[in-house]
């Protein structure tokens, strides 16, 4: 395994981490706002707040880690993606800022303020769309080189069906992942009403998720043939991912083992995400940028990998402690103890 592959593997793993924790976070905000609109707030808000409160900051760090890491391992991405992403990334930052700050404002300052909860939900709904644009752009076809600098062709980007499919996929999978997780969490809390509602949402969002995921493969066939062929070469990985999907939907349907259902879902997304990433290689931005021509020097790569290992040695036990105290603590999950700041 070369250093380039290790680097991209590390980053992709963190992006996957963000995909899962971010989805739970974005989706939870959306469901919270939606339940406010439909008058079902009483059912969901407690469960959602109890999960989100101690972890919202950690969720954000996964993203920071990814974008700092990618410039570290692949400095040329700063030149290409930095130049073209000014507008979409700025919008994503603003949405994330609204989320992060308003979450804290709402939780600690204005408890139960409807306007904030609503903004929080809406920002969560649009952030995945703003972020997923990067995936579309990396497939190539939307970037032109003008006087040696890359520039983004917004017209082509907005007209492409690929863009919209990826946006729809990101939205529906956010809601799906979040709903499955919250079903499990509510069930652990012994909250039957919330479990029932979240299970319903999970089943509703399962279908669009899998349909758009399939549709994107078809669109890639004409948009980026090379990537499509690479994906076909590892069709078994996508098939396995589909099996896990069927397994988790079946468990939800049968109202049993919600924990396992979430595990299968995590496996489904893990396999699909890595298979997608693997088949995209060696390109970071098709066809301008590969992992080989953008990789940092050897000294820096080794330093970063050492820092990464040392950092993980610190993070994994800390994250485990966080999960033990909140996610896997019966008293906390059920709200039996006073746990406010």
């Amino acid at each position, binding site marked *: 395994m070369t250093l380039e592959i290790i680097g991209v593997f590390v980053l992709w793993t963190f992006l996957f981490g963000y995909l899962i924790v971010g989805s739970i976070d974005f989706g939870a905000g959306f469901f919270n706002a939606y339940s406010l609109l439909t008058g079902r707030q009483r059912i969901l808000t407690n469960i959602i707040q109890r999960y989100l409160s101690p972890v919202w900051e950690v969720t954000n760090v996964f993203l920071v880690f990814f974008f700092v890491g990618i410039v570290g391992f692949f400095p040329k991405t*700063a030149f290409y993606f930095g130049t073209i992403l000014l507008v979409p990334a700025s919008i994503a930052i603003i949405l994330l800022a609204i989320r992060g700050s308003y979450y804290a404002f709402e939780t600690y300052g204005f408890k139960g303020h409807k306007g904030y909860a609503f903004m929080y939900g809406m920002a969560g709904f649009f952030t995945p769309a703003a972020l997923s644009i990067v995936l579309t752009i990396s497939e190539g076809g939307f970037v032109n080189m003008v006087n040696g600098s890359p520039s983004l062709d917004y017209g082509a980007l907005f007209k492409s069906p690929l863009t919209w499919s990826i946006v729809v996929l990101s939205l529906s999978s956010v809601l799906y992942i979040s709903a499955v997780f919250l079903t499990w969490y509510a069930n652990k809390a012994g909250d039957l009403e919330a479990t029932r509602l979240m299970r319903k949402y999970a089943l509703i969002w399962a279908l669009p998720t899998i349909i758009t995921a399939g549709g994107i493969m078809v669109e890639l066939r004409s948009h980026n043939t090379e990537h499509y062929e690479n994906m076909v070469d590892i069709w078994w990985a996508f098939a396995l991912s589909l099996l896990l999907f069927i397994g988790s939907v079946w468990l939800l349907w049968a109202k049993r083992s919600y924990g396992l259902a979430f595990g299968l879902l995590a496996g489904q997304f893990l396999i699909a995400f890595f298979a997608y990433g693997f088949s995209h290689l060696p390109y970071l931005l098709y066809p301008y940028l590969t992992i080989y021509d953008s990789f940092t020097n050897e000294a*820096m790569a080794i330093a970063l990998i050492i820092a990464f290992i040392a950092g993980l040695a610190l993070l994994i036990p800390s994250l485990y402690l966080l999960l033990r105290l909140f996610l896997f603590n019966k008293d906390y999950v059920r709200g039996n103890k006073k746990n406010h700041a």
Partner: protein
Amino acid sequence: MSEESVFFSRALTELTLSFHIIYATIGVGIPLMIMIAQWVGIKKNDEHYILLARRWARGFVITVAVGVVTGTAIGLQLSLLWPNFMELAGNIIALPLFLETFAFFFEAIFLGIYLYTWDRFENQKKHLLLLIPVAVGASFSAVFITIVNAFMNAPQGFDVVEGELVNISPLLAMFNPAMPTKVAHVVVTAYMTSAFVLAAIAAFRLLKGSNHIYHKKALFLTMKVGLVFSIATAIIGDFSGKYLAEYQPEKLAAAEWHFETVENAPLVLYGILDDGEVKYAIKVPFALSILAHANPTAEVIGLDQFPEDEIPPLYIHYLFNIMVTIGMSLVGLSGLYWLGTKLRWTFVNSRWYRLLIVLGGPASVIAIETGWWLAEVGRQPWILRGLMRVEDAATTSGHVDKMLILFAGLYFILGVGSVVVLTRMFRKNPVEREIEDRNVEKGGDIL
């Protein structure tokens, strides 16, 4: 390269950083203050200090939230607005950037745990242990990010051969000559600012008519800590001056309006610059030579040694004056308060003195801002001193002006929002009521 993009990129970066450092500075300093209060509370077995820690922590969450989101903004803006710089810097200085996210991660995890376990641990010592990683994480993220900034002032750890960077050493780049003074100054001023901001709050409550012993304890503790760190700041500030004289003389010369290279250099305090002439200034003989080289007769390099297009803007002199004046006043203010309290001088508890302490909070934040502007503008025209000019680093995108407006709106909302939430939070739940509530809860007798 379009001049407009360069201008707006600079404006947006300055706006984001100026806003971010208010929350970031508090974010670095307050965990230490919470830790000290919690520790004093345990040691003295005094519930008031524990409550102090708890109330500070609650307000801290709001500032952390704004710090986190604006920090995320500047983190991404570095690549969005300065893609050429980040491409180059990514090769040499990615390590401390990467480490900063680890420190931040570490802090985020334990802050979550600390905040939500207030009522879980009977033993306050266990709870204190959770604060150590929070404070360490907060301080180390400041250390690492300041290392990146130090590198921009004193790039090293690589060779340039025919336009290519070779022999890169990440550690040498991190431990550059600017690093010790910069890191120490940033961390210590963050502690100092947080102490004076908290002191201002306590003084404000006393001024507003509360006569509770809780606020008096808070005021004495924060002023004492503020005194220690403001003295440390002055000492490290002196080292920074000596560093500049040695490695970045053009910044020192511009900040001091030192135009000609001479021995026995006088220090110019205050004054205004009118058509290249200094007016109304106080000149302290030999002081600049002492400041620069600890020797009253030493030669200090002046601006005459530099080509015209490599001299920073001369207005940084005003920034320098504001920073130093505020810093020194706060040493005096806190020193006098400490002494006065020990010796039972009554004027330190008078209204006008408390009013001065209230003003000390915002003043220390202004000193932080002017200090950063001095450091950053004093590096112009370079983004990497001697290596890359600012105009070669900026983005080529034509949309920066619109983004500037967008972000200005965001920071306005965040600034107003955080102030409103913080004041509401504490006004609705004053310490008297919280003590009462806790007494009911515990059946104990906190005064």
